[in-house]
């Protein structure tokens, strides 16, 4: 069942948003709340409604039904758009302008005070690694460089809300690493970031929260652990009597492998009770690993109905430390 984040004073709030294109529902009752300073990954297969949701936030398209706010203002509010940075999925910039001129144009369109413009442009160029190409025409840029420029446009003037629609689709691995650092830096300075992507690993590595859309609806939302949780727990325990493990059977089937105990299935909320029971029985708990599948497996399960992840004991240890 989808979990909607409980957020007071959200940066983004969408209530029952429906968007029809003819008889096709791009969004079908989308509810979404994103808190200030959150870095949220919007995942979904092609046609799930990710780009439509972003366009609605900017007023580039109008909802058929439902309502919402961005930074506290109605969707598409003109003044509020000055506080939003946006990288479109279809990033194209005037090929007859130079990179610096594109950025200057956007400082003017954003109604940025003249005194701030030069430093904002220089900052943006530095952020996206285009300082050396600042005075080159965009027509000579590779697709990846154009995407970097688009990212620079989106970051201009340190916006409060940054909407990135497939920001690494044209980038090489180095560029993708740079983007992750840029996105994290934006989040660290307090910006709210929506990262729209179908690249699961990218979202997995950088986002605080994941929202999965499918057929215009939210089918999952939460932290990475919440979304990929498959139930069960694996514990490394010593000094536990043989008989004690039988007492743990009231939580669920117990499997013992040396110092490792696995109880599966088990509701995550009962993990502290399991630990209490082990400690109460004289055991020493060295490690607790909640059952966790892969994002890809969970995504496929939600989107195409494939079975969920393999059991937790089959996960390599490194899989439990995704936030490196």
């Amino acid at each position, binding site marked *: 069942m989808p979990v909607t984040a409980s957020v007071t004073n959200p940066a983004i709030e969408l209530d029952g948003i429906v968007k029809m294109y003819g008889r096709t529902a791009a969004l079908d009752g989308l509810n979404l709340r994103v808190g200030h300073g959150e870095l949220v990954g919007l995942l979904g297969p092609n046609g799930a409604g990710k780009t439509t949701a972003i*366009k609605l936030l900017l007023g580039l398209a109008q909802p058929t039904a439902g309502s919402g706010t961005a930074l506290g203002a109605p969707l598409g509010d003109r003044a509020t*758009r000055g506080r939003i940075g946006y990288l479109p999925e279809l990033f*194209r*910039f005037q090929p007859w302008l130079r990179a610096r001129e594109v950025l200057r144009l956007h400082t*003017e*369109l954003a109604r940025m005070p003249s005194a701030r413009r030069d430093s904002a442009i220089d900052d943006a160029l530095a952020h996206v690694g285009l300082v050396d190409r600042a005075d080159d025409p965009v027509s000579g840029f590779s697709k990846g460089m154009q995407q970097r420029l688009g990212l620079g446009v989106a970051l201009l003037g340190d916006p409060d809300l940054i909407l990135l629609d497939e920001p690494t689709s044209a980038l090489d691995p180095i560029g993708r690493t740079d983007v992750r650092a840029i996105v994290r830096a934006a989040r660290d300075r307090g910006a709210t970031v929506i990262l729209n992507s179908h690249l699961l690993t990218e979202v997995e590595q950088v986002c605080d929260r994941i929202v999965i859309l499918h057929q215009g609806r939210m089918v999952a939302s939460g932290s990475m652990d919440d979304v990929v949780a498959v139930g069960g727990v694996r514990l490394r325990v010593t000094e536990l009597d043989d008989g004690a493990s039988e007492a743990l059977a009231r939580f669920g089937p117990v499997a013992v492998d040396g110092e490792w105990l696995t109880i599966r299935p088990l509701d995550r909320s009962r993990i502290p009770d399991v630990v209490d029971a082990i400690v109460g029985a004289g055991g020493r708990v060295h490690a607790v690993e909640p059952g966790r599948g892969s994002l890809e497996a969970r995504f496929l399960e939600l989107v195409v109905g494939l079975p969920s992840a393999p059991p937790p004991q089959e996960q390599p240890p490194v899989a439990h430390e995704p936030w490196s």
Partner: protein
Amino acid sequence: MVVIARLTVRELVRRRVVWVLAALSIVSVTLVGWGLERLVALAREDGVDELQIRIGVSQVLILIAFMFSFVLAMTAAFIGAPAVGGDLESGIALAILARPIRRAEVLLGRWLGCSVVVVAYTVLSGLLAIAAALLVSGYGPPEPFLAVAFLSGQALVLLSLTLALGSVLPSIAAGAIAVVGFGLGWMAGVMAGISTALGIELLGRVAEVSRWLLPSDGLWRGVIYGLEPPLVLLLAAGEAPDLANANPFYAAAPPPPAFVIWSVVWVGVVLGVAAWWFERRDL
């Protein structure tokens, strides 16, 4: 709006449109001057009366203006159709329209920038051609500035139509509609004149209404009036005025002030409707 207008002019300069138009102006003015000089020289060699030469030059100038008005219509279509529509199709517009700017400002800014270039081209090319004619033949039309002003107005009408259509239709369709509309408008003017001369009342009314629906042909009559020597007007008025009016290259009077005002209102209405539609369009 000013930011977008400046951007548009810069685009037309950088994409060499302005330079191409300037080069074409020089080439066409040179050809007009050379052609007229040859015609006048041959006529004088044959002992043609100077008055007839003047009338001949004036009619050639009107024909050249007609061809130039067609070139302007095409220029307006080529510049106006992709001004908004092209940016929408390429995706360039997305990043711009996500900024705190009204879509109407983008539309009007594009119109303003294109208008500056089209009017500059019209004025420069038109006045240079008239000056060349004056230089080689000694004939100058009675109202050169009025003629060029009406020519500019005609170009602006077509530019407004193309740009407005380009904001709601694919640019190719918008350009095609504007060019066809220009042709139909001219044909409506011709039909209105012929039907009046022949007394076909219904056809005359239909043609007259279509002239108001797309005021390009009405403004073209102002161009002719500005280029027509008074002697031709006197001769035509004295013999068969209705038949003279059926001639698409003759105008007994400039368009009435009400028509000129309507043309300005028409541009405003077309841009206003396009802006209203564009504001509501999903991108």
